[in-house]
């Protein structure tokens, strides 16, 4: 006969079950999460939209804005002036015909002889609604410029990279929502009681985080393969070459950053008992998801703010690769930020597993975090 005190499952799992059964259970849970996600239409719809979005970003610019502007030219002088530029010339008989082409949108502008004698070039440019800046620029004479401290990266490119990283992280961090929903589903249907009596609670959490993370990483990997393809198809090889080194850092930061948020999403799911209440419990997590997006987008010109953001684990995933891209960060900095992020992940996993254990079996009203914490003791 035993005199052992009954202990809560989380206390006994470590002593009796080998780690093998913990991992087996986690793997089974992860497999179920993956198979139930990939069977949902929503998963494929969003994924399809991402693929289309990436292809569009790569190809569309060259379809619409791509190529040199075309101009209709009237007279030999116009033709000569245009021939010295990269503009695409389309000689026509007279000014009326040139105007007609501009009106119909067949050409971006027309270059005609200057009859008033105002122009030093002896030609006039005819546009439709706005001044055709690119044509004017092509025809203008610019003095040579010497920069004292040339920036390696143009501000335009930096803005683009910042925006793409921030948006990308934001969109994928929202993939934690299905994770939170899956936790609530188990609570709401009460299957959690069978699960908890069968496998260690922590293997449920580990399996869920692993399953959803793998799904997201798979999507990211596929998108990362499509993106260069799309850029190449759109003749934007230069942009690709510029992005590649920053991407190399973005990926590991993204992986750790996502796991960090996933632990929070799962706790947000475990403290409520109904899908309807998920909105309120996920507010804080949503804010943490938006932090890198808004923080980095708005503060990218503020060096101090960016330095801080690149070390805060929740925004490091975006801010540090951006600083690396703009070459503001020293060599050791990404390693330090990554180490900090890794520590944050470990701490969050430990805290989350305790909160998750303490709140999973509590039903009814929303469980307070302090209550969940003490419940797990």
């Amino acid at each position, binding site marked *: 006969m035993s005199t052992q005190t009954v202990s809560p499952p989380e206390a*006994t799992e470590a002593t009796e079950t080998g780690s093998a059964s913990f991992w087996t259970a986690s793997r*089974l849970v992860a497999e179920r999460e993956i198979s139930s996600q990939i069977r949902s239409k929503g998963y494929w719809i969003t994924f399809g939209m991402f693929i289309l979005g990436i292809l569009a970003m790569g190809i569309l610019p060259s379809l619409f804005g791509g190529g040199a502007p075309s101009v209709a030219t009237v007279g030999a002088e116009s033709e000569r002036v245009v021939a010295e530029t990269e503009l695409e010339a389309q000689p026509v008989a007279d000014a009326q015909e040139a105007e007609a082409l501009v009106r119909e949108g067949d050409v971006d502008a027309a270059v005609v002889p200057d009859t008033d004698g105002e122009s030093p070039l002896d030609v006039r440019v005819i546009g439709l609604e706005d001044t055709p800046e690119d044509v004017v620029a092509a025809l203008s004479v610019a003095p040579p410029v010497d920069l004292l401290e040339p920036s390696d990266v143009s501000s335009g490119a930096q803005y683009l990279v910042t925006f793409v990283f921030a948006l990308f992280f934001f969109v994928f961090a929202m993939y934690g929502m299905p994770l939170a929903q899956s936790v609530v589903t188990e609570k709401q249907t009460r299957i959690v009681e069978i699960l908890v009596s069968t496998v260690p609670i922590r293997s449920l959490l580990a399996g869920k985080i692993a399953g959803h993370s793998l799904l997201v990483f798979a999507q990211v990997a596929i998108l990362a393969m499509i993106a260069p393809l799309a850029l190449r198809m759109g003749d934007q090889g230069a942009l690709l070459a510029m992005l590649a080194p920053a991407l190399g850092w973005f990926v590991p930061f993204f992986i750790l950053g996502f796991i960090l948020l996933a632990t929070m999403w799962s706790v947000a799911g475990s403290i409520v008992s109904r899908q309807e209440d998920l909105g309120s419990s996920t507010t804080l997590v949503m804010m943490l998801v938006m932090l890198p997006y808004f923080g980095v987008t708005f503060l990218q010109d503020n060096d101090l703010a960016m330095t801080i953001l690149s070390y805060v684990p929740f925004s490091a995933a975006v801010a540090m690769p951006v600083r690396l891209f703009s070459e503001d960060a020293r060599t050791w900095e990404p390693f330090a930020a990554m180490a900090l992020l890794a520590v944050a992940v470990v701490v969050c996993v430990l805290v989350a597993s305790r909160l998750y254990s303490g709140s999973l079996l509590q039903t009814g009203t929303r469980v307070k975090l302090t209550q969940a914490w003490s419940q797990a003791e």
Partner: protein
Amino acid sequence: MLQVRSVSRSFGTHRALDDVSFDVAPARMTGFVGANGSGKTTAMRIILGVLAADAGTVSWRGRPVTQAVRQRFGYMPEERGLYPKMKVADQIIYLGRLHGMHAAAARRNTDELLEQLALAERASDPVEQLSLGNQQRVQVAAALVHDPELLILDEPFSGLDPIAIETVLGVLRERARRGVPVLFSSHQLEVVERLCDDLVIISAGAIAASGPREELRSRFGPPRFELVVDSDAGWVRDMPGIQLVELDGERAVFDLSDGLGVSSAPSGNGDGGHLEQTVLNAAVQRGAVHRFGPVVPSLAEIFREVIS
């Protein structure tokens, strides 16, 4: 043998379980009865480790119940739960695998169970498309898929129609025959009465009585007899040492008020010299006796007696 010893549990100031001890023996079906809120579910959840006890022990085959041990238990919680969008068979296989089964074995057992529970043709439907009664059967399958060493079923029959009750009952009896201890709670006392070998009666968080059903019957049912003669039986009222419970013309039901009768084992074979024999003799002298025998108390009566 599952042994629950001195288990207590409080929720805030409410003492849900107070020094609860009972056994669930192999190859026996143990009925767990008690009013709403008397602590049945709490006790079951503690056995399954879903809830921690404040004090006391639960042991299985003489050893403390741990996660690894518990993985071989089968549990049907009071609040049923399955994944609504998952297919019936997939779901049961998944639960079987969580209990440590290999995929092939889980699939084999699932097919077998669905067959037994008359659910085979719904195997690839999502659970949410099944009627509540059928979902209940799936829940039973979920508790049995891994050939558990012990079964803990909280209200397994609630929500089942009479035919489904028979089906589920058949499946559970078969498990018990194979040597599995089965603990089940129910509000339907007549079902428990038919089904159980042993009884645990809980009242307000404390065990009011426990033991083999027949033993409890004899312990808590007062020694009661029924007599049917061919003329008015009113004379029974005047016999010394007995208490008339019911009189309806030729039929009389009486208790041996001073406890001198036989132990009211259902055989009813008391040796002479007992009060009920005196009554019988008197009846024979008065004329024909159509019926005479002990009245076996129903579980409902025992229950009332025990918790009063």
